[in-house]
């Protein structure tokens, strides 16, 4: 690694410099989120054809699958920052974990909600206690548990450590969700998209889903950046730079 690269890495790992960077990046990710979601919805409703088996009810896929992907992906990113925070004791990584949890919980809720509304017309039931649905519900409880545990402990360092341990133990749930449709016989259908083979769906349906996933991705980054800025201000309030920052706001 070159010397200049190294310096810039440490430069942005300081909450103070990252606060400014996050503020500059956030509007761009918000704009991208809006653009991708508008394009994705247009493809999903006006270009993608009616499904031969499920009729129009399948159009829930354009939010169901991207939100389910985000719910798992955000958990992995949160787990990663928890691990980094535990090992290296870096302030910003714990702040990231705290900032990501609510958005992850939100996407888990959306995945469950849209799944229920899709399950009713296709399976005839809102909910079954099968492997995929149950493990996704556990994911929601893990997010809520992480947030509750962090909020319950006053000492910030201890709160971060306890939260990180909980989050890291919970990481085992993510592959269980992902592979549940293969490992157990379940009502939930198998993946329409996999790394190994071409998607088993119309190209336009696939395109709508991918563009919506990109939109949700950008949304997650934008909201996490705004939240991490709040968390930085709260936790770094004893520093001179936050005092100056707040002073300018008045």
């Amino acid at each position: 690694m070159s010397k200049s690269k190294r310096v810039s890495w440490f430069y942005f790992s300081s909450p103070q410099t990252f606060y400014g960077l996050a503020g500059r990046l956030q509007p761009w990710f918000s704009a991208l989120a809006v653009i991708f979601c508008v394009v994705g919805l247009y493809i999903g409703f006006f270009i993608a054809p009616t499904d031969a088996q499920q009729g129009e009810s399948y159009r829930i896929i354009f939010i169901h699958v991207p939100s389910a992907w985000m719910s798992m992906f955000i958990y992995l990113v949160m787990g990663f920052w928890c691990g980094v925070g535990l090992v290296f004791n870096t302030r910003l990584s714990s702040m990231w974990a705290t900032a990501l949890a609510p958005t992850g919980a939100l996407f888990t809720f959306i995945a469950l909600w849209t799944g229920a509304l899709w399950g009713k017309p296709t399976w005839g039931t809102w909910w079954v206690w099968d492997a995929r649905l149950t493990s996704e519900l556990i994911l929601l409880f893990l997010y809520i548990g992480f947030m509750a545990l962090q909020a319950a402990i006053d000492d910030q360092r201890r709160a971060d450590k306890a939260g990180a341990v909980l989050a890291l133990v919970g990481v085992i749930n993510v592959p269980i969700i992902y592979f549940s449709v293969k490992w157990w016989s379940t009502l939930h259908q198998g993946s329409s998209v996999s790394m190994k083979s071409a998607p088993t769906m119309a190209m336009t349906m696939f395109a709508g889903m991918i563009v919506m996933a990109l939109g949700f991705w950008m949304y997650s980054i934008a909201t996490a950046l705004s939240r991490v800025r709040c968390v930085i201000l709260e936790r770094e309030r004893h520093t001179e730079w936050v005092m100056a920052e707040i002073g300018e706001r008045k």
Partner: protein
Amino acid sequence: MNWQSWSHFWAMGGYGLYVWGSYAVTLVVMIGEIVALLMRRRGVVESLTKYYAARGKNHEAKA
């Protein structure tokens, strides 16, 4: 084009309740998160402004 008219569009082939129920809740939850973030931001700035004002007074009192 999939839809002959707007009413066909809203009916979603008889699945309107399920499709729009999914999209509406998703939209509400996302907008809710954005509003919550804006309020949190404002709350943080307000409470820190008070915190520094109180601390400033303490410093003056000690001096």
